[in-house]
């Protein structure tokens, strides 16, 4: 809000510069964003908090200055005595919707000459960002800016039957407001009406028909108090935010009605030569209740962290117009002024004292620890370890929006996983649905980098997906890690060429991550279809022991991690330049997977024995199948299998491949004899032979 220093001085004769006022108001919670010099005046731009509508005026800010400087406010000049017939004989006011209107006061000024305002009025208005219109409208704006209480001026001769009704709009009623827009009204909206039609939107804007024109001779002044919620709702519904609605919806002072009328009448007499009709119609269905609050001196110290002492507390309350009296020992009773709608409880008064004394008086100390320090949180540790591992493996952490375009994650969602949740008021089309997969965002980022000239891009994100639940309501928010990789598998180097990234590089990254987050977890990797990925270039990870289900139920046979190449059709649809490999891991399921015990195993005392088997595999036989067959014969000692070579080409048939598997037997206690090793090898060969896997000769 813009305020004039000269105007403030006319209300409170304080001794201080604009800069000093700005510093004092800021220190009292009314932040001054800017100071603008304007001739011999200065204008402050003040950010008035939503709970201080009393400060949306020069008088309200003058009260703060008066408290800060210890200078009394100048008394408000009185209005002229009226002449002629009293208003009670000339007009009628009836409040029909008393629930939405707590008070409605009207005065009448006759013989008004509408014309331009004098220069000082135009200057005051323009320094506060308003234009001068005519002396009557300007008078109402001066009242608004000085007292903060919005008033409205009607051309009284255009009010049918000289009757003012405060009522809900009837369904289908229409009103053309002062801005020339025709509005459709409904019974939720409070209007001011004459005997025939609505003439104003209560607390928001007047109607065009009854507005002030050059021909206006009689002005009816409205000063009222409308229910904040009602004004707010109507203003929202109609998209009309006005200076009046801004104040009414935050809470105007019901007691300021008379003062506003007094000032308006005085201005209309001074600026427009009008003569007021004696008296004021004042319909007051809701009496103003003055709130009394109690403040314990000890509570001030407990909340602020220092005890200012009773004297200073009392002086602060007094300076703020709270009229403190002592009820009990070390306890003050205060009466809250009607304009301070924000003061509702004891804590509010503590803030008032703190604000007045200055927050710089609060000492600084650290809280004394109470209770045990918290245990380590394995979940957060795992999440952070995941970030570290991926960054160490050469991936860059990114953040993608949690929202996607409509349908953007459909290709990556499992059938039956439900529709993505809609943001009902999206800010842009690409942010209209809550994501069910991290992959679309990563693909977007990958693509952006490639288009900007980066050839090799490796990205990861740790973030949530939002899975709709069958019951509706809160979605199942799951923390996932997503990975996207395109370009080379290793940095280019003079020592030799680097291969392009492939399925097995990504599998390696995923498994490093699995091991880092949940060491020795029981899972298995296999092939399996993943939506949106190349059907022949995927891997999925499944639990191999029953999991305790975290959060809302999931299907245990569902993989908890998957990776692979982006489906060529998707790549084409997205118009991506490069092949991309993607992975996604459900961190919450991973963290809760059962794991092997991680104890110490004694070191073997005897050497290991190994045998290599060069095997020819028929199409469709995977290494996993092979390993299952190799597990059938009972080994004479703990055994491990390593793949040391893979070959395809002549003399093998084009569909065959050869794998060389190294079988490593590691006895713990005694050396294995050659016969035992050979016997085991023979058993393996026999078991494989039964499934038509032959040795390569």
């Amino acid at each position: 809000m813009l305020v004039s220093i000269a105007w403030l001085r006319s209300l409170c004769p304080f001794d201080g510069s604009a800069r000093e006022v700005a510093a004092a108001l800021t220190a009292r919670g009314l932040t001054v964003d800017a100071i603008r010099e304007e001739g011999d005046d200065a204008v402050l731009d003040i950010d008035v908090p939503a709970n201080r509508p009393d400060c949306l005026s020069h008088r309200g800010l003058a009260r703060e200055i008066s408290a800060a400087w210890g200078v009394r406010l100048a008394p408000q000049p009185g209005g002229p005595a009226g002449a002629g017939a009293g208003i009670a004989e000339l007009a009628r006011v009836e409040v029909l919707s008393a629930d939405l209107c707590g008070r409605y006061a009207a005065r009448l000024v006759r013989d008004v000459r509408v014309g331009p305002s004098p220069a000082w009025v135009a200057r005051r208005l323009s320094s506060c960002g308003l234009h001068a219109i005519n002396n009557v409208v300007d008078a109402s704006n001066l009242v608004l800016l000085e007292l903060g209480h919005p008033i409205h001026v009607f051309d009284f001769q255009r009010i049918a039957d000289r009757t003012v009704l405060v009522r809900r709009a009837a369904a289908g009623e229409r009103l053309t407001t002062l801005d020339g827009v025709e509005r459709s009204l409904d019974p939720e909206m409070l209007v001011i009406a004459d005997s025939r039609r609505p003439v104003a939107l209560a607390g928001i804007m007047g109607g065009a028909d009854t507005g002030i024109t050059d021909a206006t001779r009689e002005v009816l002044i409205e000063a009222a108090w409308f229910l904040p919620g009602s004004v707010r709702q109507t203003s929202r519904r109609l998209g009309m935010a006005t200076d009046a609605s801004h104040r009414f919806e935050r809470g105007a002072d019901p007691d300021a009605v008379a003062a506003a009328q007094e000032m308006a009448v005085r201005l209309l007499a001074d600026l427009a030569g009008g003569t007021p009709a004696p008296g004021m119609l004042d319909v007051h269905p809701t009496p103003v209740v003055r709130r009394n609050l109690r403040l314990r001196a000890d509570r001030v110290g407990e909340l602020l962290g220092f005890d200012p002492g009773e004297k200073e507390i009392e002086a602060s309350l007094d300076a703020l117009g709270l009229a403190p009296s002592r009820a009990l020992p070390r306890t003050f009773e205060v009466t809250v002024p009607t304009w301070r709608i924000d003061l509702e409880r004891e804590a509010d008064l503590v803030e008032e004292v703190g604000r007045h004394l200055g927050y710089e008086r609060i000492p600084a100390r650290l809280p004394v620890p109470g209770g045990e320090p918290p245990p380590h949180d394995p979940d957060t540790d795992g999440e952070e370890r995941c970030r570290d591992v991926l960054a160490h493996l050469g991936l860059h952490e990114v953040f993608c929006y949690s929202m996607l375009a409509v349908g953007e994650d459909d290709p990556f969602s499992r059938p039956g996983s439900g529709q993505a949740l809609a943001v009902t008021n999206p800010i842009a089309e690409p942010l209209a649905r809550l994501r069910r997969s991290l992959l679309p965002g990563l693909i977007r980022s990958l693509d952006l980098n490639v288009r900007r000239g980066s050839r090799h891009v490796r990205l990861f994100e740790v973030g949530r997906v939002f899975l709709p639940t069958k019951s509706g309501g809160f979605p199942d928010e799951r923390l996932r890690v997503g990975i996207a990789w395109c370009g080379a598998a290793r940095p280019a180097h003079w020592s030799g060429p680097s291969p392009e990234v492939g399925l097995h590089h990504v599998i390696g990254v995923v498994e490093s991550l699995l091991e880092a987050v949940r060491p020795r977890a029981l899972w298995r990797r296999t092939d399996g279809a993943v939506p949106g990925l190349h059907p022949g270039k995927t891997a999925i990870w499944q639990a191999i022991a029953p999991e305790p289900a975290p959060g809302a139920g999931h299907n245990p046979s569902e993989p908890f991690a998957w990776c692979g190449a982006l489906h060529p059709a998707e790549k084409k649809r997205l118009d991506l330049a490069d092949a991309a490999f993607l992975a996604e891991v459900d961190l919450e399921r991973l963290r809760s997977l059962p794991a092997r015990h991680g104890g110490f195993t004694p070191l073997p005392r005897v050497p290991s024995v190994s045998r290599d088997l060069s095997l020819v595999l028929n199409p469709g036989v995977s290494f996993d199948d092979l390993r299952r067959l190799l597990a059938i014969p009972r080994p004479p000692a703990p055994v491990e299998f390593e793949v040391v070579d893979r070959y395809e080409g002549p003399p093998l048939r084009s569909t065959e491949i050869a794998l060389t598997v190294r079988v490593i037997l590691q006895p713990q206690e005694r050396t294995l004899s050659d016969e035992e090793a050979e016997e085991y090898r023979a058993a393996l060969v026999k078991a494989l032979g039964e499934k038509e896997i032959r040795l390569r000769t």
Partner: protein
Amino acid sequence: MRDELRRIEREFNSALVSAGTDPQAVEEIRVRYLGRKGEVTALLKGLGSLSAEERPAAGKSINDLKERITLALLGAADAAEAEAHRLSLAHEAEDPTLPPLLPWVGSLHPVTHTRRLIERVFREMGYTVDSGPEVEDDFHNFEALNLPPEHPARDATDTFYVQGGLLLRTHTSPVQIRVMRSRRPPIRMICPGRVYRRDWDATHLPMFHQLEALVVDENISMADLKGTLALLWKRIFGPDVETRLRPGYFPFVEPGCEYDISCRVCGGCGCRACKGSGWIEIGGAGMVHPTVFEAVGVDPERYRGFAFGLGIDRIAMMRYGVDDLRLLMDNDVRFLRQFPI
């Protein structure tokens, strides 16, 4: 005889010098003097032709010469071998200034670096790190925080709504509500996380990161808040940083305040970065509002608490001197790789 021995020794010595460290030349000299047909060997063989009186003295002289030659040859052979070894090592030498073989180098997002830095300060002081859902309901995001429907302060947080009467949380404060409803004081927690506001321009993104702290105990005052904030900002921006509290309004705290830190560009003297004030506004804070305590079932007469919030993205930008907010969500690797692990 003596002259003959002197000549042989002189010639041997000069031959050995000219052979240098060439192992081939040294071997040839050995053959020439000590070989089967060598000169010294020939002298020893000729001893038989001497008289019995001459033989012992001559024999000793020749054997002495042979020993000297043998030792000299051994020395030369060692030197030659050492030289050969040196040469072979020199041949194996590599250029260490060539680009090394490195794995890919990754990075963490500047917001992650900054969040971790802040988290560490609080973990050291025994705070827990808590989280809550990003899709919230009106109760946790607004109502329990003393923001009833139609409250004008709701204007400041333009909210994204989600089908089913839900919303995307506009701040991390609902986590405070959830923690206070599930745990009894004393509570010391921080909650970092994503928050959402319907605002998108050069200085606002519709999604950003907040971190809030909450301490609830029997003896908490604004002095504890002030001390905690002062410590945090000294740990983040260095020992010279000043913190100040200004009265400010947030419905969920009373007394409430905003807090500023001294401008890091000018050190508090006033510059363009701080609009001449010497202070940079960081966030909101205050004592937990009694209404909030009542909403979560904590007795406001027995317990008091402080809370404060900050925007991690903005702190990250200040730490690293990033001048364009949009870079944080662009995910351009040329930006990201400037923040290695």
